[in-house]
């Protein structure tokens, strides 16, 4: 599903974010990216979403070389990739329902699809009762659920999560992880960058550890260390 071949990404001022990184992720896998701040986790997520382009190496997503993708095709790549962030990125002037519906609306899904999909996904994340609320009326955990609902409503092949529990307390984080686990069980490949030792240790999934831009460990059923 995802293949990185000797990928190197250098930011301005010779800041090396990724150095000769190679790794392969199969369809339906759940992968943790771990490592200290600045080790290249977020860069890897941004490369997979084609927000960044590497200086060297190749990246394949769903069998396509995404570096060579012409810019008008990028939106179609992103429709297969859901994204969840530490800061949720919800739109404050839209209700929960509208926030999720927006994701379908802007890729041109017809109204009747939106009307059935959005309540279904909100039901799945356990927020059916808060459809009419605005983001600032929800707790952090609930807001993150909305953002997961938005990322998943289009049933993407891949879900990228950049520290989704970074702003949440441990109990709430467990709830978010259960949700991501459930999404993974539907066959969606999940790649999650995290600092959260407790989560990684309890889930026992594949762990890819980065250190100063290099992959230093790739372990099936691994722990944080």
């Amino acid at each position: 599903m995802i293949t990185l071949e000797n990928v190197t990404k250098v930011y301005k001022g010779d800041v090396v974010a990724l150095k000769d990184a190679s790794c392969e992720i199969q369809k339906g896998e759940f992968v943790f990216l771990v490592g200290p701040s600045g080790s290249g986790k977020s860069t890897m997520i941004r490369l997979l979403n084609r927000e960044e382009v590497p200086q060297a190496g190749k990246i394949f997503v769903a069998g396509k070389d995404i570096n060579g993708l012409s810019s008008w095709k990028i939106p179609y790549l992103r429709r297969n990739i859901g994204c969840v962030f530490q800061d949720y990125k919800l739109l404050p002037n839209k209700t929960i329902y509208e926030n999720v519906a927006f994701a379908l609306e802007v890729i041109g899904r017809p109204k009747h699809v939106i009307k059935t999909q959005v309540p279904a996904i909100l039901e799945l994340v356990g927020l059916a009762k808060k459809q009419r609320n605005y983001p600032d009326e929800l707790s952090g955990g609930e807001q993150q659920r909305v953002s997961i609902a938005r990322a998943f409503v289009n049933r993407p092949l891949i879900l990228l999560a950049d520290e989704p529990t970074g702003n949440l307390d441990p109990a709430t984080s467990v709830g978010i992880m259960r949700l991501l686990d459930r999404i993974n069980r539907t066959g969606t490949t999940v790649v999650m960058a995290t600092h959260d030792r407790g989560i990684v240790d309890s889930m026992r999934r594949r762990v890819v550890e980065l250190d100063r831009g290099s992959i230093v460990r790739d372990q099936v059923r691994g722990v944080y260390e």
Partner: protein
Amino acid sequence: MALNVDYVARETGTNLVRNVGLTIATILTVVVSLVLVGAAFLIRQGVDNAFTTWRGGIELIIYLEPTATPQQTAAMRTSLADNPEVKRSEYVDKETAYKEAKKLFKNSPEMLSSIKPSDLPPSFRVVPVRGDVATVKVLENQYAKSAGVREVFSANDTIRTVQAIAGFISNLVVLAALILGMTAAVLILNTIRMAMFARRREIEVMKLVGATNWFIRVPFMLEGLVQGIFGSVLAVAVLVFGNNLFNSQLDKRGIKLLANFAVSNSDVTGISVILVVVGITVSVIFSGIAASLYLDV
């Protein structure tokens, strides 16, 4: 990809309302600049109407007798062609003269109905090498007594002065219109930029979930289009009103001197169409540029 009409209309409306102050400023600038462009056109048209025959450096018109023989006409033609003081000359036959008369008097059909092509004298329009008064006078005297010539008219100083002033004014107005037009374009650019900045979070999310660039752009371009439409329609309204006011003042005060400057409604319509097309095209192009330039918010 099918653009959702509902969505586009809603987004465009929100953008326009959110930036209402800037929207009004932009529309007004579009109006003023288009009115100036239109006014320049109307002034030119008015002057052209008043001096249809005195255009393109023509300083001298030699009217032949309506009864002049072909030999006399040919002799005149040869004489003009051989004259070193004459740069070029143009023969205007009866039919052409009638056509011009029709144009000149299209606002007074009763006048037109009283003339026939055969009544009108054929003429030579002469462009001299040097356009100064002395040379023209010499040429005038030279041809006034030739066979078959009825009368020789030369462009007098008044006509020259009016033409020069009108040309100067209309150039000045065109210059002002150009500057204001650029201001309007930059304002449109800026309005769209502000609108996009105000919506940067939406745009970020849209890009993230895979909205195409065109989908993101269209509401902003429509915002520019709406400004262009409002601006040019208002400009046309101002222009039509202004022209009618000018014409009614001419009638009411009986200013015969300026009567020839009146511009017909069909000319105003033509100019209006040009203004609307220019207004809309410029605003769409500039909002499109803005929507592409500032998409990376």
